[in-house]
């Protein structure tokens, strides 16, 4: 079974869904991991250097489960990024998931709300259900 998991920031999948993903991986599911933004706004020293560091941290944090696709969209500006919706949609479509895990649709990260209409653009045969974590 193909499971797509998408977090908004480089550490979200670890904090919110690592246990689910590890359990799925250990029973043989195929995980397709995505990180939407570059995380450049999440620290004291914001910017490109932080984004580079966080990319490494994301790969290290998820190493036991797979290599994440870093969509590299702008942290804190996802709602305004002109290509964000297409990038995320294409990432999900190309993975042909049976199940999508993402974050709660009303969170401290309001841009996630933009993801809901995106799911409506997927083929009905693709995603049976979206599974949401707090």
């Amino acid at each position, binding site marked *: 079974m193909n499971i797509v998991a998408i977090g908004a920031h480089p*550490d979200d999948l670890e904090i919110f869904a*690592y246990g689910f993903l590890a359990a799925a991986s250990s029973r043989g599911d195929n995980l397709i991991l995505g990180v939407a933004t570059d995380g450049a706004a999440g620290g004291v020293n914001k910017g490109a250097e*932080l984004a580079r560091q966080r990319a490494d941290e994301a790969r290290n944090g998820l190493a036991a489960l797979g290599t994440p696709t870093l969509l590299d969209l702008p942290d804190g500006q996802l709602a305004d990024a002109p290509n964000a919706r297409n990038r995320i949609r294409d990432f999900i479509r190309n993975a042909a998931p049976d199940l999508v895990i993402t974050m709660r649709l009303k969170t401290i990260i309001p841009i996630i709300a933009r993801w809901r209409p995106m799911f409506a653009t997927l083929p009905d045969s693709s995603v049976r259900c979206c599974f949401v974590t707090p």
Partner: protein
Amino acid sequence: MGVGFTPDYYIDISAHFAAKQKAIMAHHSQDPSRFASASAIMNRFRAAQCNAPDGHYAEAYRLDHRFPFTDIRDLLPPPPPYRPFYVPGSDALI
């Protein structure tokens, strides 16, 4: 931390909790011990909602259904085992 969130499915992550903590701690730039602590509280609480004793952990989720409805619970990793409450000799929390 789950405020205002109503889960409808729980996953037993006890066997993977140590790996989860290690994964969170990989994010050095984020002062990650605060997230590891929060995760320990949250995942322990979610297991306690399943009447699992100390040392057990769970994650909680909601199913966001699409048309056409289908029950996907058989696709998911299992929840903590059912533990009736107030059974003498049981390992349950309550």
